């Protein structure tokens, strides 16, 4: 099932990716091939089969409610490109 250009554009927007105009055809082609390839799964006999989310059949462990982390802001923010007064900066968002 091939994808259309519009579909690919929508997907790219959802994923916050830009596709250059001269790349678009190739991207559509490659993605379509992948989708065609995985379409084989449609024929698999999965009636009544429970989807497997995890390979091991165990349940979530719980941790005690204690504070174990301390303030390391300066060290951690050394990795950020745009910080002011301890805040991470982004282009202004309007609500």
């Amino acid at each position, binding site marked *: 099932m091939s994808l259309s250009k519009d579909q690919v554009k929508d*997907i790219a927007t959802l*994923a916050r990716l830009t596709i250059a105009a001269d790349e678009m055809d190739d991207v559509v082609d490659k993605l379509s091939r*992948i989708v065609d*390839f995985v379409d084989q*799964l449609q024929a*698999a006999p*999965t009636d009544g089969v429970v989807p*497997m*989310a995890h390979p091991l059949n165990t349940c979530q462990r719980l941790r005690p409610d204690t504070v174990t982390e301390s303030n390391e802001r300066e060290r951690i923010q050394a*990795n950020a490109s745009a910080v002011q007064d301890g805040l991470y900066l982004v282009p202004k968002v309007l609500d």
Partner: protein
Amino acid sequence: MSQEHDALHTRTLCELRQGLADGEFSATELTEALLARIAGAGEVLNAFITMTGEQALATAADADKAIANGDMKPLTGLPLVHKDLFCTRDVLTTCGSHILDAFVSPYDAAVVERLGAAGAVMLGKTNMDEFAMGSSTETSYFGAVKNPWDLSLSPGGSSGGSAAAVAARLVPAATGTDTGGSIRQPAALTGTTGIKPTYGRVSRYGMVAFASSLDQAGVITRSAEDAALLLGVMAGFDPRDSTSSEEPVPDYLAALSRPLKGLRIGIVREHFDEGLDADNEDLVRAAIAVLEQQGATTVEVSLPNLDLSVPTYYVVAPAECSSNMSRFDGVRFGHRADNPVDLMDLYCRTRSEGFGTEVKRRIMTGTYVLSAGYYDAYYLQAQKVRQLISQDFKAAFEQVDVIAGPTTPTPAFALGDKMDDPITMYLNDIYTIGANLAGLPGISVPCGLVGGLPVGLQLVGPHFAEETLLACAHQYQQLTDWHRIVPGDFA
């Protein structure tokens, strides 16, 4: 340099451990020798992204003091390298990507912590497919890694740098990660031993996530014995990883000499079809025959849904990755686009500039299969097929103790060969992917050469059967020499 030092790079980890304990050479001498070798003969392979020579020498000096005090831990003074997917504190951690090419991790991954605490000396971070997405180490932002057996060929991927470094005897051991075969396949294509443990056996804390329900940390070494040594240190419960197993860690070294007599080996009918290179097949069958000579028996088993494993993987892995990659937005760390006009521009340009083609392709595939209207047909369906594949293995393991077969369909392929059609590249993983989907442990060991290129034998076991796999691999390696053969240029 003395005679002994010339030979240091040819020794296994266990041999080096003995040498250090015997005082034959110092940890510092060993580290210096390997650093020199990497800088010299190793340059051509592009196996490394970052070298940590200064830090390594400091650790080696500490190791020498410890050795002098008779205070040896399991890995004191032993050199290794980490795939650049593992976070290393205060050291560049790039995941082979432009988006993290200046990222200095503020913390150590559990694997790095544990190996470090056991005394290991980290020499550097190895090159890899970007964010572990690839089977040839060609998607790395830092350029492809070359196969030491033939520099025009790929070493496989995504742990290509780790495999090449070990194969070329630059280091005795390297960590790797395996989501669809990324340890086992490069091990097979480079004539090294690579193990992917059971899902949950080794902590994923600090191992940058690609596909969270499939990723597992492991090692690439020259021998099963070395792998057993390292796995014993790496494995075990970590409270920081909710998917970490509390299953106790056995003594893998002690288990190596378990007799093969009575071991039931499954031969999968579906493995041996026209997709498998005939020469590969011959070597694999010959390897199995060696095991039979030691008293193992073979049983034909079936994994009827085997050929659905690649499409299943290429729905599940991209879906999980598409979500895992969303944190890379330039806001808190990593590459950030210059002068963004608004938030949308910040996100789109940062990510489009920062990620390579394959990563973007998988993010989009994943976004598509999770999107409204497609979730049931793709993601949910894939999770159901995953269940079927797991059930196939479970049924097989009721009749056999291990499954033996080829690791890859062919030996190493040329760089640039499979980059045109993603599907061709994806099909490389046909034999390895099933173990990831079912969370099973798998190991690849060298079992021969085809046209001068290595071929791997893969053993897959039920959950937490690492002891059986390592014993089987070790004893095979006692009887054969394939794992000792070094590529000509790197002898």
